[in-house]
């Protein structure tokens, strides 16, 4: 296993090596999270690389990534643990003649019959892991409350077994798209990282890293257009992932330059609402046409 990086700059360098270009604060806060063993709450618009950060961290630290995708109605049986009652029943029936009641009772509430769900998995893993709790804002507040024990003490209480404490400290990342405000109690236990759309140069670097074959000129043009589109008042502004997709699409089409025709044909890669399409076609189309005639 790799040693934990000693400095934020060091961590940033190694994140880069995995293909993730962190902003300054992303590298710093990740470093703090590793050093202090505190969970990080990552917020930001959709598609700025919140989930990707967790994946990259797992790769840098050479740890397994345990992911819990949250959704409305997620409960502890699906997040923490569940007794495998089918197996328990089988166990009882298989030995009902020979074994004493006491033995069976002790037996069926052993860890063998415990179905581990992601959170339990992350806690009880013998090797340290990176735990990603994705889109925490999609769950109920009740679920958030349940997480508190895990996040502050890294332990889970199972009534039949007692307390299960973490054998190793996982690095925990929680992501939120900010669709509702999280509780103070949860926020208090986390470091906070706000990821926003990157600046032009930063995004340019990211796109270049993922599609190095695409020409310099057109890549810059592409990123400029994406940034311009983000300025517009859209239902869903394009994310970084979408700029990369777009770059790939242009590469596939063998585009040399991003002109008006090419833009019209491919803009559905970055704009995904009917109403948005019209706005973008009109506003950006005009700019591109003007740029083409003057340049």
């Amino acid at each position, binding site marked *: 296993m790799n040693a934990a990086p000693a400095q934020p700059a060091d961590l940033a360098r190694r994140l880069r090596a995995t293909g993730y270009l962190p902003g300054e604060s992303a590298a710093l806060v990740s470093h703090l999270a590793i050093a202090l063993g505190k969970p990080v709450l990552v917020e930001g618009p959709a598609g700025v690389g919140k989930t990707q950060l967790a994946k990259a961290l797992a790769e840098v630290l050479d740890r397994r990534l345990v992911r819990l995708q949250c959704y409305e109605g997620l409960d502890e*049986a699906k997040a923490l643990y569940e*007794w495998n*009652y089918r197996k328990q029943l089988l166990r009882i*029936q298989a030995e009902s003649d020979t074994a004493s009641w006491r033995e069976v009772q002790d037996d069926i509430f052993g860890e063998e019959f415990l179905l581990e769900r992601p959170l339990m998995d992350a806690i009880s893993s013998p090797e340290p892991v990176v735990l990603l709790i994705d889109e925490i804002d999609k769950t109920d507040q009740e679920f958030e409350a349940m997480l508190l024990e895990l996040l502050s003490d890294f332990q889970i209480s199972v009534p039949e077994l007692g307390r299960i404490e973490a054998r190793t400290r996982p690095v925990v990342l929680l992501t939120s798209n900010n669709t509702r405000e999280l509780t103070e109690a949860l*926020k208090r236990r986390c470091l906070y*990282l706000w990821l926003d759309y990157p600046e032009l140069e930063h995004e340019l670097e990211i796109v270049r890293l993922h599609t190095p074959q695409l020409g310099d000129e057109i890549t810059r043009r592409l990123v400029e257009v994406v940034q311009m589109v983000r300025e517009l008042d859209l239902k869903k502004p394009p994310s970084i992932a979408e700029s990369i997709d777009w770059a790939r699409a242009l590469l596939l089409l063998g585009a040399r330059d991003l002109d008006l025709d090419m833009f019209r044909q491919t803009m559905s890669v970055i704009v995904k609402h009917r109403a948005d399409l019209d706005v973008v076609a009109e506003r950006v189309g005009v700019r591109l046409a003007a740029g083409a005639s003057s340049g």
Partner: protein
Amino acid sequence: MAARLVDFARELREEGVMTGTSELLDAVAVLREVSWTDRDAFREALAATLAKSPEDRRIFALVFERFFFRATEAAAVREGVRESVPPTPPTHDAAQDGDDASGELDLELLRQQIARAVQQGSEGAMRDLARLAIAAFGRQGEGSGVIGVDVQRIRRQIGLRAEPQTELDPEDPRAAGLPREALRRFEALLRRELERGQIERTEALPPSRPLSELDRALPSGPLQDLAAVHRVVAQLKRRLKTRGSEHRGARRRTHVDIRRTMRASLQTGGVPVVLKERPVRPRRPEIYVLCDVSTSVTSASVFFLSVLHALHDSFRKMRSFVFIERISEVTDVFERERDFKAVSEAIGRDAGVADISGYTDYGRVWDEFREQVGDDLHRRATVIVLGDARTNGRDPRADLFAAIAAQAGRTFWLNPEPRLYWNYGDSVIRAYEQYCQAFECWTTRHLEDFVEALARPTSTSPDS
């Protein structure tokens, strides 16, 4: 240092950022991990532990600037540290007598240097040049006394403009216009240097100003400070959230949870002796909100809309309507948009309130509301009306309102006018008041009172 941090946290709290002791402990812990000399890392590390939402982040940035700037200045005054050698501009006295040819040239050079630094946006160069600019153009010691005026005067003298200045030599960095963002930063640096000078002269700190005097009364002008309203509503949101849940439904339905029953039956050898029930999630109340957006309540409607916005965050089962002469449902606008500004624009643009006369017609509103919602109203629902009950002389149709109130569990009326003005002129709140609980609501304090009433369990309908 810990003491300093506590001070800092107190200033944050005064500006409405919730920072607790555990956050402070974290802050101390993270500061051990970052190097002291790196200002950005220092700030980011503090922000990660103390400011945990985008709004808090914005306030944090302001307070951080203010706090640490003042801290260094206070220390300097205490220690008697002064700038030993005032920075020397290229021409020291040419600023006053412009006829010195060589001096003029140097001054022009300085102007160009500054413009170039602004154009490149390099923070360090701008900081150094800001001091030189003050020394050269600032007429030391006899500033106007108002820092803002001095800043603008210096800027004019250097000829820094965002617009292109075609009369200048095309080689001059000012000719093509300068980036606004960098200009703004340069002005901020000038301002800070001037403040520093003032502190040195007077050997005292100017009184610390709060970031914005947040009047707790509703903003009344058309140019309201949205951010201020929003901050109050954010606090309200928090309160609503914790309030609401403790009172919500406790009555249990019996839904057998097969999985848990089976598991429990293992203890009795597979015979389901104990039935396990599925836990009942607390039931969210259903809320219908009608919001007046006509001209008579213009000043309050921004506030009302932000209240609506906050309510939507807290209650999932909620339908909102805006009305002037007719009614229009805007629930989906709020569900689609998270950003308040986008919401209010969307409502202004496509809410489609048929606004012919611009005057409220309450009778028609009740009628249409019943038509649209009709049978969905039941004893568990709450209806909230935000409006001034000024009918412009039209029939209030209190009978229709009474029917709505009878059908719904609870009905509230929030009136943006002080109670004193109620029932004067064309205000007909009296006609409605007998069917609902009416609140005056023109400060956030009133709003909090109302929220408590809203979250209180219903006494009228015991079955909810």
